[in-house]
């Protein structure tokens, strides 16, 4: 055995072992999963990710509802995404996805949801801004509360309100001469679950952002009608907390410093960063979303339906690939046997990559993989047909094989290139308007095509070289084994 072949054989064997190990449906050690540094921290795992069509759930695509041609700036889009994500988090689901796509679209994926209609209503609804009466107990930022105002209730089980630490307390006051009070409630108690709504976003007239030597503050002006109500309320509640709640989530909980007549007030933010202050100002200003969002598409898939699809695909895949393996063995005998080994390695490598990258598998994605496996033997067939011609022409086994691989190379290269071109077009098409089906197919087909170059050429050739060296003359005289 030549040195190079021996090394290649060892590399192939190691790869095969590694791939099979990754493919195994076992709990892989945590340190190993943590080596996958390209996956987001905390979510590193060696597992197949199924798309919504296979696990069931809701997918909503929201688009910025602006006149044609008008651009949406990235900051507004990001703020909108953040708000949508907050709303989605309120649903208490695991593994949700909220991402911006193509500049003016937000894709929301909610696997395993019970009530998709409610979720759509919550996601698309205009966010509700409220000022709620929290009494003497400030609420921690991020607390989800129930208020006296109707409208979408985010969480089915409101989180018990948690009192905040005094340092973080912003204040609410009339004029510029605000003093941040350090007084905190002495005995924090868990307040009752329903808070009274004093004002809503609709009562706000103007909102700004400014800073002084104490940090950022948000000046605001109320509409005339609300101003009176606010004046009365603040006068009788000095020292208490008035929490700003967006979509039932507390975003800030200032303390009332003094009575605020005339409707002009400010929210002092203390040590908030510019980003935080600006974010809050935006949320107050727009009442909700910095850009209006419209539900563009909504798709729901029943979870059982997804399970059935996975089962059926696996069964179809095993049947289809078994026939391919059998066909190659019967048609090309010992050559086919080697191609079969390469094909099995091909399948193992693909699955391993899906787990490691990770690739989210959709139904068309599985079809793309199966199809690429069916096509994977194409390269081998090209080589074997050439080999047989050369053998008939009287060449020796080894010479025929080398010529076969060399001559077939251009055809193989061309066919792979054209498939990859098609995949690229499909991928771009799929990405640009959120057709994740198309994207899934393009990705698995492309990965398969590239892996195939390795298995069908390097692996099969090495296996054949080693085989021919070991069996040499014996095989040369038994041509039926080579199907010549």
């Amino acid at each position, binding site marked *: 055995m030549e040195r190079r072949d021996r090394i290649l054989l060892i590399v192939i064997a190691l790869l095969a072992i590694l791939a099979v190990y990754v493919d195994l449906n076992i709990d892989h050690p945590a340190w190993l999963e943590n080596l996958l540094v390209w996956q987001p921290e905390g979510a590193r795992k060696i597992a197949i990710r199924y798309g919504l069509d296979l696990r069931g759930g809701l997918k909503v695509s929201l688009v910025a509802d602006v006149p044609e041609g008008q651009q949406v700036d990235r900051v507004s889009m990001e703020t909108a995404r953040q708000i949508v994500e907050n709303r989605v988090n309120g649903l208490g689901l695991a593994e949700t996805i909220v991402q911006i796509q193509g500049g003016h679209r937000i894709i929301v994926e909610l696997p395993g949801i019970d009530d998709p209609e409610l979720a759509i209503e919550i996601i698309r609804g205009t966010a509700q801004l409220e000022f709620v009466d929290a009494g003497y107990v400030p609420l921690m930022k991020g607390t989800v509360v129930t208020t006296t105002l109707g409208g979408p209730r985010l969480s089915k089980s409101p989180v018990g309100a948690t009192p905040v630490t005094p340092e973080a307390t912003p204040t609410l006051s009339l004029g510029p001469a605000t003093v941040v009070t350090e007084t905190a409630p002495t005995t924090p108690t868990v307040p009752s679950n329903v808070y009274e709504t004093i004002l809503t976003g609709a009562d706000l007239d103007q909102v700004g952002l400014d800073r002084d030597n104490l940090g950022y503050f948000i000046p605001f002006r109320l509409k005339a009608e609300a101003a009176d109500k606010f004046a009365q309320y603040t006068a009788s509640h000095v020292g208490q907390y008035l929490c700003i709640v967006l979509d039932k989530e507390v975003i800030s909980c200032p303390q009332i410093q003094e009575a605020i007549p005339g409707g002009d007030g400010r929210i002092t933010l203390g040590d908030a960063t510019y980003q935080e202050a600006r974010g809050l100002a935006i949320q107050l200003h727009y009442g909700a979303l910095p850009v209006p969002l419209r539900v563009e598409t909504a798709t729901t898939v029943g979870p*059982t339906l997804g399970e059935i*699809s996975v089962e059926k695909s696996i069964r179809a895949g095993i049947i289809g690939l078994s026939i391919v393996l059998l066909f190659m063995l019967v048609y090309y005998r010992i050559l086919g046997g080697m191609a079969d080994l390469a094909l099995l390695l091909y399948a193992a490598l693909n699955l391993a990559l899906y787990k490691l990258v990770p690739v989210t598998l959709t139904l068309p994605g599985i079809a793309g993989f199966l199809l690429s496996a069916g096509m994977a*033997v194409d390269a081998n067939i090209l080589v074997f047909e050439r080999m047989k011609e050369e053998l008939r022409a009287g060449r020796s086994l080894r010479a025929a094989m080398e010529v076969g691989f060399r001559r077939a190379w251009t055809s193989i290269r061309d066919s792979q290139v054209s*498939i990859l071109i098609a995949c690229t*077009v499909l991928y771009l*098409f799929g990405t640009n308007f959120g*057709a994740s089906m198309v994207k899934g197919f393009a990705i698995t087909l492309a990965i398969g095509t590239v892996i195939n170059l390795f298995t069908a050429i390097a692996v099969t050739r090495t296996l054949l070289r080693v085989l021919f060296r070991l069996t040499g003359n014996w095989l040369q005289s038994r041509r039926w084994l080579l199907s010549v």
Partner: protein
Amino acid sequence: MFDLIEKRRWFFTISAILILLSVGMLVLTQVRFGMPLRLAVDFTGGSLFVLHFDGPATEPAIQAVFAANDLPETIIQRLGRPEDNTWQVRTREVTPEQVRAIFSDLAEQVAPVDRDLSTYESVSPIVGGEVTRAAGIALAVAAIIIVGFIWWSFRRVPHSVRYGASAVAAMFHALIIVIGFYALMGLLQGWEVDALFLTAVLTVTSFSVQDTIVMFDRIRENIFRYREEPLERIANRSILETIHRSLATQLNAMFVMIAIILFGGETIRPFIATMLTGMLVGTYSSFGVAVPLVVAWEQAIERRSRKAKVL
């Protein structure tokens, strides 16, 4: 040697008939549905429900529930076997309130819907136009790249224009027949053109062009090897030499596709079936259209130059 090229008139006749039938299907769809292909909600906007009932349902009963919820225009179809109790309903875009009302009304008046086995998709009509444009661009880009690829592959062959043009003609020939097949299935089974259909068409086009290129490759090689032979024989020889490879590859891909069609999920059946058809038609158009066209082209020019000499 079995002579395929000699029978090219047969092939041309078969192809002409298939193309005519395909165009006929498109016309028929146009007459029945007002568009040459039935477009899915991805393109037109609207909603598509796949409802799995716990008991038997009827079309008028389902229709009545949708109409009562302000959705008078519906296209309702049964999916699978009658005992599956699965129905597909297409209508205009629905709101979550409507969906909720529809599901509760269906449970009362028809049969309870098993949400775990049902799906629905709702697309706003505005997005439809955008998707259609994106699809058009994707197809145009793909076509340009494929034609460019063909041109590049044949840049060194004598009369490369003939090969390129024949390959492109064969490609369109395959494309028309695949679209015709889909239109037929649209009429029979209610298949609708969605993003996956475009995917299938693009994939298959690149595969079938590949097939043509492999055959032309062999012709290029054989032209130099058998200099004394006429093109007709060389072409035939090349087809026979490469058809093994074509058929073996197709067979393997076909095994997988047929397995998916028979045992795989119903949702991707049209997708895979389109690819299977495309693959068959693609292979056929390689040896039945592309290569014979090149031969016919050469002979037509020869005949003309012979005539010129006689005169």
